[in-house]
């Protein structure tokens, strides 16, 4: 048997035993926050949400244009400009609908060049009508192959004409290319591509800044989402708490009503409500969404309250004669807060979604105001020629959805008492 230092066989006091590190005891919320912080995705979501909110609130302060400013010269400009040098120190860029814009060397927009009405004698082939129609690139290519040397348009610049045609591919048998002819000089190589500085997200078909509109759209979409969620929260929690706490007959009747509302697709009710109220601005849609989506929340709160009601601390409070209203507000609701918060977090993106959907079918805010859904809807007609007009508002919706979903998933893990240990 190994020999052990005899002094080790000495009793230790309670104090000495305390060397063992004890986990600090955390409150429910501290614990939840600690767990949430550990979850990388939900932190990404949280930061994303903060950025989106900042984007909506202070973003518009930095733009020079308002969401309704239209500049007729600069319609359908893409966020990336392809610049051609048609003459020394003379640069132009072409828009999706064949407007020719004079730019400087760095790509700053100067002015739109007047279109010169072509007479038949100038046209070499093809009918004019076909040229103005926007075709898909695939169709376009076929067309171009059929008539390689095709004059599209002519523009006046300094009393001379700039001709635009497709002849670029003739000798090389490559894809079509734009060819500019100015004062007899032919330009078919692009000079460079630059970011559009005036319209970082491009401009729409009325010459409005898509970036500004997406920022204002964020205000509208987020306002709708947050306020509707708040309305939904207030109605849902009140309704659910009363049903759950009262129980019995009251509960029965209240839940039957919820069942009936729930037996119709909620979007349908929202549509009916919107049709009924008539479109009277932002409040209509907030009200319609808020008045409908609470049923899920009510169910959830009722379930929570029913479960909590039986627990000792509530029985104790009842026995002590605490008023019913206080039991609900002080004891039951705070204890049901975890699931309520998770549900709120998920409610916001679904409100964004619903609002976008409503705007898309023409029941959203009215012009010139625009939510993300309206922007996406407006971009639809020009999708093949100006896809960026859809890309930005759609990305805004998707990023918001993602951020809230990430946060919601994290909250679910952090607030779920079943997982709470260690």
């Amino acid at each position, binding site marked *: 048997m190994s020999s052990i230092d005899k002094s*080790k066989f000495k009793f230790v006091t309670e104090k000495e*035993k305390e060397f063992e590190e004890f986990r600090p005891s955390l409150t429910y919320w501290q614990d939840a926050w600690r767990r949430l912080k550990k979850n990388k995705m939900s932190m990404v979501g949280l930061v994303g949400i903060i950025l989106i909110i900042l984007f909506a609130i202070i973003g518009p302060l930095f733009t020079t244009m308002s969401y309704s400013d239209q500049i007729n010269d600069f319609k359908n400009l893409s966020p990336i400009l392809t610049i051609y040098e048609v003459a020394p120190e003379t640069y132009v860029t072409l828009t999706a609908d064949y407007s020719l814009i004079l730019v400087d060397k760095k790509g700053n927009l100067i002015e739109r060049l007047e279109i010169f009405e072509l007479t038949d004698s100038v046209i070499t082939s093809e009918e004019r009508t076909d040229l103005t129609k926007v075709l898909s690139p695939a169709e376009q290519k076929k067309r171009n192959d059929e008539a390689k040397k095709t004059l599209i348009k002519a523009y006046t610049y300094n009393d001379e004409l700039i001709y635009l045609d497709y002849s670029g591919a003739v000798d090389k048998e490559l894809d079509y290319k734009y060819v500019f002819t100015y004062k007899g000089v032919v330009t078919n190589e692009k000079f460079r591509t630059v970011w559009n500085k005036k319209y970082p997200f491009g401009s729409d078909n009325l010459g409005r800044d898509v970036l500004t509109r997406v920022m204002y759209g964020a205000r509208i979409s987020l306002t709708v989402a947050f306020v509707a969620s708040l309305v939904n929260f207030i109605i849902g929690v009140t309704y659910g708490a009363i049903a759950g706490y009262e129980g019995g007959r009251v509960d029965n009747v209240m839940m039957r009503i919820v069942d009936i509302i729930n037996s119709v697709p909620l979007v349908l009710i929202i549509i009916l409500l919107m049709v009924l109220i008539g479109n009277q601005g932002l409040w209509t849609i907030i009200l319609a969404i808020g008045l409908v989506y609470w049923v899920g929340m009510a169910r959830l709160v009722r379930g929570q309250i029913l479960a909590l009601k039986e627990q000792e601390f509530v029985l104790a409070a009842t026995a002590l004669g605490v008023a019913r209203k206080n039991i609900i507000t002080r004891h039951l609701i705070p204890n049901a807060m975890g699931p309520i918060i998770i549900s709120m977090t998920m409610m916001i993106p679904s409100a964004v979604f619903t609002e976008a959907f409503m705007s898309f079918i023409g029941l959203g805010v009215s012009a010139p105001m625009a939510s993300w859904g309206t922007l996406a809807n407006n971009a639809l007609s020009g999708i093949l020629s100006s896809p960026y007009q859809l890309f930005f508002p759609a990305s805004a919706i998707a990023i918001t959805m993602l951020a809230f979903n990430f946060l919601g998933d994290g909250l679910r893990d952090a607030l779920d008492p079943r997982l709470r240990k260690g």
Partner: protein
Amino acid sequence: MGKILEVNNLKTSFFTHLGEVQAVRGSSFSMNEGDILGIVGESGSGKSVTAMSIINLIEDPGKIKEGSVIFNGKDLTKLTESELTEIRGSEIAMIFQDPMTSLNPVFTIKNLMTEVILRHTDMSKKEAIAHAIKMLDLVGIPHPETRINAYPHQFSGGMRQRVMIATALSCDPKLLIADEPTTALDVTIQAQILELLLKLKDETNTSIIIITHDLGVIAEVCTDIIVMYGGMMMEKGTVDEIFYEPNHPYTNGLHNSVPHIVSGKRDRLIPIKGSPPDLMKPPTGCPFSPRCPHAMQICLEEAAPMFKLSDTHTSACWLLHEDAPQVKGYTKGGKQDD
């Protein structure tokens, strides 16, 4: 009677994203045919993990890190998954704590029972059904011919546990592991189930491991007892040794914290102060030392070896070391067993 099971230095851990949970930290024991071994300990002491390690059914992220489980001459930790499934349910059967959730709710009892019988025997479907009915009858289910077509939710908790036992015994296992078979049941049902286990043991000569945190259960039915704490074995002995000559402060604590009927007199209940150790960062020394009334310096630094008090009785407590101060009730100078 030969050795049926021998567990050597078993170590099982769960590798969670928060760190390694050392659920079992070096258990060794053996069982003879016909023994009824009880494993007691507080919640979280590693009893269930020990049981699951025996049939090598530790689920992700758990792993048997070290040690061997020799059953019938085979080391179960070395077998392939398909060899193990042959043994599970036929040679070693298991029943679990909560009969309410341990039966698949969407299948009939017939479906669940015959599935196991058909898996491990050569019976035809018809024979399997007849055998299942016989087993149900054996465990005391009235009208088994009709009840076998019922779904689990149509049975009470006690009945479901009987169904579990019938299923477990349907392939004549050599070893039955019952993980807290009575914890979820009310007291009268508990007694019935224990009685049933004893009766069946006599009829089938199955060896049984009963896991529980209820000393009363153990006293009634077991031949040997292992006391576990913090993933380690604290004391091991026959029923009489553990009940009348307990030699570990934790065993004593357990005795004091339950109403004592076995010992004849009724003491005041003394709960054990403090809470079980965090197995993520287990104490370096004896896991019980932070709560032990007789903790010594060495207890905090080094886990005690198993001191041998008799052929059957060992205890992991430094108080038994010859240099330790004399404390009333603890036999000093047992042989260090390793």
